[in-house]
Structures are given as structure tokens and as C-alpha cells.
């Protein structure tokens, strides 16, 4: 009974979220256009970076950049889900929802499911455009499945982070608090060149940034030479665990606030 109510709440919340996403151009278009833009601007505009001495990525610069764009799409999909929760609070819908449902954890699960489907939609568009623009994929089906799984689990982690912030602040003013940490974390990694070619303070920061491990494993998957995948999956699983607690304690706080 409890599982049934959980599933029914999660399904309803996810369906509403996805319906809003697909039928609202202001939500749908930026989610698709921005990752494409990053791929084109970095993959196209900086392609000569692939000629820098010491840059030895076997699948070419577009594939190198694609992995970062895919992870960026996945992570920002989670942030946008946090925005949706904050908007639901501003409109009063979230409070009515909290009163109506028997299992409130199902609300968080519903948002997370919607975030994953949303990331799948935008990721598919990104993948298609990258392939059409001549990206080399040297990894096999299993490697690609590994890359996609990494991106989707990162999306869940980012959704749980955004959810935790949105449930604590319960206003659109939470937007920068959701966006900025994710934005900074995603840029303080080896975005344009491998870690070994970074210099100065950014190399030190990127070396300890957990997203660097995820990015490295993703790039290894697409080039068909998997390495560091165990560490990357451990990192995303850890992020999901930490932000899962963050989201659930946020939910309790929102419940107490009424």
C-alpha cells in the first residue's frame, strides 16, 4: 500500500513535470539550445586545441568536448528541476501538493524521475547533433551505456541538490544558489584540455574536483579505452547519497514550514 501510494505520487509528479517541460517552449528550448551551443562553440571554435603538444585524445576534439557538454546537460537538467520546484512553491502549487499526497518522499522521487527523462531527451538531441557534425565514437555499446549511465546518475545527484535548495528556500530567489555552485563545479574541471595540460590554480582545483573523475571516465568511455570508471561511479553514487540526504532533510524542513 505504501509502495503503491509512493509510486502513484511519483508518477503523477513526474508526468506533470514532463508535460510542462515538453509543452512549454521557454523551458524546452534553453535546455536543448545551451548544451548544443556549448558543443558548437567549444568543439568547433577551439578545435585547434587538439593540436596542442601533449593533447593525445584519440577520438578527436569534438568527442572530447561532447562528454563535457553531455555532463553539463545532465547536471543543469537537475538544476532546472530545482527551479521548477521553487516555481511550484511561488505559485502555491507545492503547498497544496504537500497537503494532498500521502507519501511526500514520492514528490521528490517524481521530480527526480522527470529530471532523468528530461536529461534523456536533451542528451539524445545533443548526441544526434554531435554525430551529425562528425564526432568520432570509438567506444562500443557497453562503453556508451557506461557514459550515459554516468550522465544520468549525475543528473539525479544534481536534481537532489536542486531539490534540497528549493525545499529550504521555497522561492525563485533560490535560483542563484542552485545554479552557481553547479556552474562553478562544472567549469573548474579540465573542460578544454586534459588535466595534465592545465596550469596554475585551476589545475590544483580540478585535481580535487569530484567531477574531474566523472569527466575523465566519460572521455575514456567514448574513446573506447575505459579507465577510472570504478572511481567515477563511486563518486556519482556518493553524490547521490549525500544530496539524497540533503533533499530529504529539505523535505522535512518544508513540511515543518507548512
Amino acid at each position, binding site marked *: 500500500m505504501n509502495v503503491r501510494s509512493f509510486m502513484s505520487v511519483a508518477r503523477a509528479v513526474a508526468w506533470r513535470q514532463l508535460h510542462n517541460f515538453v509543452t512549454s517552449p521557454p523551458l524546452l528550448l*534553453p535546455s536543448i539550445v545551451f548544451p548544443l551551443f556549448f558543443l558548437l562553440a567549444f568543439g*568547433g571554435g577551439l578545435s*585547434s586545441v587538439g593540436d596542442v603538444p601533449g593533447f593525445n585524445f584519440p577520438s578527436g576534439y569534438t568527442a572530447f568536448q561532447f562528454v563535457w557538454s553531455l555532463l553539463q546537460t545532465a547536471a543543469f537538467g537537475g538544476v532546472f528541476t530545482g527551479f521548477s520546484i521553487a516555481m511550484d512553491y511561488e505559485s502555491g502549487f507545492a503547498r497544496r501538493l504537500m497537503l494532498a499526497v500521502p507519501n511526500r518522499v514520492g514528490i521528490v522521487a517524481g521530480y527526480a524521475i522527470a529530471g532523468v527523462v528530461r536529461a534523456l531527451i536533451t542528451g539524445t538531441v545533443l548526441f544526434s547533433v554531435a554525430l551529425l557534425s562528425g564526432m568520432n565514437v570509438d567506444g562500443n555499446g557497453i562503453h556508451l551505456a557506461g557514459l550515459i549511465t554516468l550522465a544520468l546518475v549525475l543528473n539525479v545527484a544534481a536534481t537532489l541538490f536542486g531539490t534540497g535548495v528549493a525545499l529550504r528556500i521555497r522561492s525563485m530567489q533560490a535560483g542563484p544558489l542552485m545554479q552557481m555552485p553547479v556552474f562553478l563545479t562544472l567549469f573548474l574541471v579540465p573542460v578544454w584540455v586534459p588535466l595534465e595540460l*592545465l596550469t596554475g590554480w585551476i589545475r590544483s582545483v580540478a585535481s580535487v574536483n569530484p567531477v574531474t573523475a566523472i569527466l575523465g571516465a566519460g572521455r575514456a568511455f567514448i574513446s573506447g579505452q575505459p579507465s577510472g570508471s570504478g572511481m567515477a561511479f563511486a563518486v556519482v553514487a556518493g553524490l547521490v547519497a549525500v544530496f539524497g540526504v540533503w533533499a530529504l532533510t529539505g523535505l522535512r524542513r518544508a513540511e515543518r514550514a507548512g
Partner: protein
Amino acid sequence: MNRVLLIQLGLLARRSFLRTLRQPATIIPSVLFPLLLLGVNAGGLDSVTKLPGFPADSYLQFAFAIPFIQGTLFAAISAGTDLALDIETGFLNRLSLTPTHPAAILLGQLAGTVALAMLQGSVFVLVGLIAGIQIEAGILGAVLLVLMMALLALGFGGIGALLALRTGSGEAVQGVFPLLFVGLFLSSLNLPRDLIQTDWFRTVATLNPLSYMIEGLRSLIITGWDAQALGTGLAVAFGLAIIGLSLSSAALSQRIART
């Protein structure tokens, strides 16, 4: 008549400037964000300087022009959003019922934007000098960097005002401006045009006027006094200012006529 116009302009410019100063949430990101991106880019792309033909020894030096352009875009978003807020709250309607000259309304608003841009530019120059950047054109070059930034802020501010006057919505202004950031990335922002390998990207960057603005600013930093790059950059910046001001003043006339 001219004296009255100047008084009106001064009052509205003061209001615009103070209004911006009273919003730390507007000023701080518009100064910090471009500097942060500069730091990230400089560390991330420093190895690009090893490419044959790269025009600088340090990527920080090469990329130092970028915050000046990004800063003007932030200033212009602020100008557009503030004007849209004046429309949403009815302030512009009330102002248009007074004998205030339309030119004072528009230029007063933009004067605040230009002042913010000069403040940003001065901070960027100061931080750059502290970080060890050597402006090849010297002190006069540094002054010209700030003045060019002010000119660009006038142009982009004009576009922000146009969007605000056409839509009357701050959300719409904020929604359209990311397109300008897209345009900025599709330029010679990160690499000189002759080092961009992808053909379509190089073509877009060559057609993109923002490339010439960046190259004009960049020439002062990495080359010194390069008449061609600087002249083209200034011509594009003046062109943008003329277009921005003409279109926004036409839009203001239409909005006031409707009132």
C-alpha cells in the same frame, strides 16, 4: 532649452546610477563573473599559447579583453531590466506626462549604464595590473580600454533599452540577452580567427561584428597601437552605439505616443 535638457538628463542619469549602485546583486556579479571566467579560461587554455602563430605568450594576457565585453553585456542587461521595471511599475508613463524631453529619459537611463561600465572597466584594469598583465599600449591604452568599454555599454545598453521598450518586460529582456552571449562565443573570443580550424566557425567569427570589438580591445593589450584593429573595433563600437540609440529612441517615441 538645452540647459533644461541637461538638468533633466543629469537628474535621470543620477537616478539611474544610484539605482544601480543600490543593487549589489547587480554590480557584484557583473564585476566578479567576468573575472572568474577569465581566471578559469586563463588556467584552462594556457597550453593554447604553444600553438604555432599564437600572438601572446600568456593566455591571461590574450584573454584579458574578454571581461570588458562581458561586463558591457551585464551592464546592458541591467539597463534593459531597469527600464522594463520603470514600464512595469508605471514610472515611465508618469514621466512621459511631465515636460521631460524623451532624449533625457533615454540618455539618462543609459548614462547610468555607461557609468557602471566605466566602474567595471576600472576594476578590470586594476585587477589585471595586479595579476601581472602588461597593457602594451601603456597608460593611455588602459584609459582607452575603459572608454571603449563605455562606448560599447552605450551601444549594448541601447539594445537593452530597445528590448525593454518593445516588450515592456524585464523577463523578456533577460530572456533575449543570452543570445548576445551566444554571439560572443561565436566570435574570435577564445582564439585568433586564423587559428580557428573549423571552417564554418571561422566564417561565422569573421562575419560576427563582436570579433572586431574584441580584436580592437585585445590589440591594445597584446600588440600596442595597431591602427587597423583599433580603428575597426572603434568603428564597429560607434556603429553599434548609433544603431542602438536610433532604434531605442524610435521605440521610446512609439511607447510615449501610445501613453
